[in-house]
């Protein structure tokens, strides 16, 4: 209940105050409808997709320290996008709006699937949660470095095309983008309700899940696909957004002391949206004209939480 109020308050503040101009509903309608509304909707979508993707990853890896950003999945997606943009621009693939966007989304999703599968493969070789986290961080560093190298070698004119990929940004989506982003996000988040049972069973580990009549590998495949699509589209539209995916499921488990994943599914979507909405508001509160990158704020929220949990060393 409190969450829903927070969510609505977040929407309200983000719509009315998160910008350099004071926009009123009756005032400058372009600023309201074409800038604030897409930004607010993007914050909601990005928050919920990343949080839900994080929830799924944490369950699949049975590791509370998993998340799309810390495991390098976002970076993988963004690396592949950079590659596509770089090679695509030269042959003029991005002149068509729809084709361009589809290609970016597709490469972003493929990038996240590839990294997820790599992590899955590596996770079988290591037993410790923390080591997996370290491997993920290394992977994200590798992807970041490769992306840096791409920028370094690229034509300076193409360079600006993916400078924004380095940092997450909520303000680069237009209403036209939302027409693609919104249905994909809703359909894929919605499809998880068909996986509530497998998710609950996965909590008991592979063998018990199998014994409870869950086809482990098939369900795991679909869940990885869903979480990759969720991470992929968000990265395609916002770039890699830090720490939301790992922190929100952890918060959700603190707030709702239950193992029922359908509750966490909803609360993750809500908490994730709230966090990004308020991050967006915070970005604009320090100064009217200067905005902070949204990743800075989410990192400030997410990273201390992870450190706190590492210190507490409690099995969530």
């Amino acid at each position, binding site marked *: 209940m409190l969450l829903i109020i927070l969510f609505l308050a977040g929407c309200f503040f983000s719509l009315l105050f998160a910008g*350099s101009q004071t926009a009123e509903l009756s005032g400058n309608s372009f600023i309201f409808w074409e800038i604030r509304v897409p930004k607010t909707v993007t914050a909601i979508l990005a928050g919920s997709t990343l949080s839900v993707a994080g929830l799924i990853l944490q369950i699949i890896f049975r590791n509370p320290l998993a998340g799309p950003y810390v495991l390098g999945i976002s970076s993988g997606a963004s690396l592949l996008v950079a590659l596509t943009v770089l090679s695509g621009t030269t042959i003029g693939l991005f002149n068509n709006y729809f084709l361009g966007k589809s290609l970016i989304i597709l490469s972003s999703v493929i990038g996240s699937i590839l990294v997820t599968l790599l992590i899955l493969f590596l996770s079988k070789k290591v037993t410790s949660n923390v080591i997996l986290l370290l491997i993920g961080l290394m992977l994200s560093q590798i992807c970041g470095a490769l992306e840096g190298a791409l920028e370094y070698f690229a034509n300076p*004119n193409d360079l*600006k095309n993916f400078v924004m990929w380095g940092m997450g940004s909520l303000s680069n989506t237009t209403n036209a983008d939302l*027409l693609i982003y919104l249905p*994909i996000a809703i359909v*894929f988040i919605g499809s998880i309700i068909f996986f509530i049972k497998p998710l609950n069973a996965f909590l008991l580990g592979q063998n018990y899940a199998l014994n409870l009549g869950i086809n482990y590998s098939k369900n795991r495949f679909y869940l990885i696909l869903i979480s990759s699509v969720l991470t992929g589209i968000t990265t395609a539209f916002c770039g890699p957004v830090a720490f939301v995916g790992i922190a929100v499921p952890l918060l959700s488990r603190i707030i709702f002391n239950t193992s029922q994943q359908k509750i966490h599914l909803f609360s993750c979507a809500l908490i994730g949206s709230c966090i990004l909405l308020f991050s967006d508001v915070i970005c604009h509160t320090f100064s009217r*004209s200067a905005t902070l990158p949204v990743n800075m704020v989410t990192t400030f929220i997410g990273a201390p939480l992870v450190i706190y949990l590492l210190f507490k060393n409690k099995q969530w």
Partner: protein
Amino acid sequence: MKVKSFIILQVICLSFLWSCYSTPNSEFAVTDKLKIKALLSDVKTDPSIKYAKRFSLAENEKCRVAYLFGNANNMDTTVTFIFLKDTSLKINSIQNIFVFRSSCKKIASLSSVYTSMLCELGELSHIAAIDNIDYYNNVAIINTHKNDTLALAELSKNPELDVEKTISLNPDIVFNFGMGNPGKGPNEKILLAKIPMVLIVDHLEETPLARAEWIKFIAAFFGKGSTANFIFKAVEKNYTELKNIALQAKTKPSVFTEIKYGDIWYVPGGKSFMATFFKDANADYIWKEDANTGSLHLGFEQVYSKAKNADFWLNLSLLKTKKELYAMEKRYAEFKAYRSESLYNNNKIANEKGYSIYWETGIMFPDKILSDLILIFHPELSSQIKNDMYYYKKLD
């Protein structure tokens, strides 16, 4: 099974969207397209554009036209700007074609280069917004800003353009630096708000005169072609004369530029704008054999091995003294140019933030830069150059 049906649903959703996109407001766009085609069928290209390759101007009885070639997204795009003489014509802007009924009265200029061109064209009173006052030495601009900060908005206090401020300002025209992709980020939103934005690509030109010629392009938005021609003609004449003076020099001193940032020393390529200046000033640019029009990313070692015996070292970031240079990196002292005190920087006149007037007017007046360079490289020719140095100054 359930999942498969969802994937199918998703495909249906996407194909529905696809069909929406492939026909955007087609009817209006088509009639406007036809009208524009008819309007532009008999335009005559302005033959006076001699150097610049990235824009052209044309005219007929009904309108003037400016074409801009290439942007960061696609080098083959042509963006057309039509200025109607006959304002009764009912033609709307469509994608990549902007139609203007009257000359622009409210300008947002997002680079000091364009701002100074606008001032030179006498459009100062129409400038409503600039990028960031920190970059300016222009007294008129600074005074306007000081007297009334609202009269001259700053739109790029952040690294990124403030979209909301720009849109609520609602300028007639935005002159923006052509590095950004028009289909992404702030630029996309501004174009979406139906605010005409020009992504100027003068940086893609390879010679100083070609870049200076862009004043004619900017003038087209205000019908000030003759003023621009007059200004450019003087620049061209001076530049050519200076080039001839430089040829009389007996020596050909060697020169290199820039300092390193972090580990990387960005030096202008052999076919770049800066390299052309050195060639025209009859100096020997260390990387003249290189084929790049942009910049080279080198390490200290690579620069040192080629430039240690060079006679001159120019364009040292925002530095003012030799001490500052030494403090940054002790190994800089190993260069011959450092020991012989042949260090010149382009910040003779700079504001308190260290930004030099060179960056504002240098593009527009390459003759001034060339005269400075000749004075630096060939002091024996100083009798033929009437003036002092404009931009350059020896490091203290």
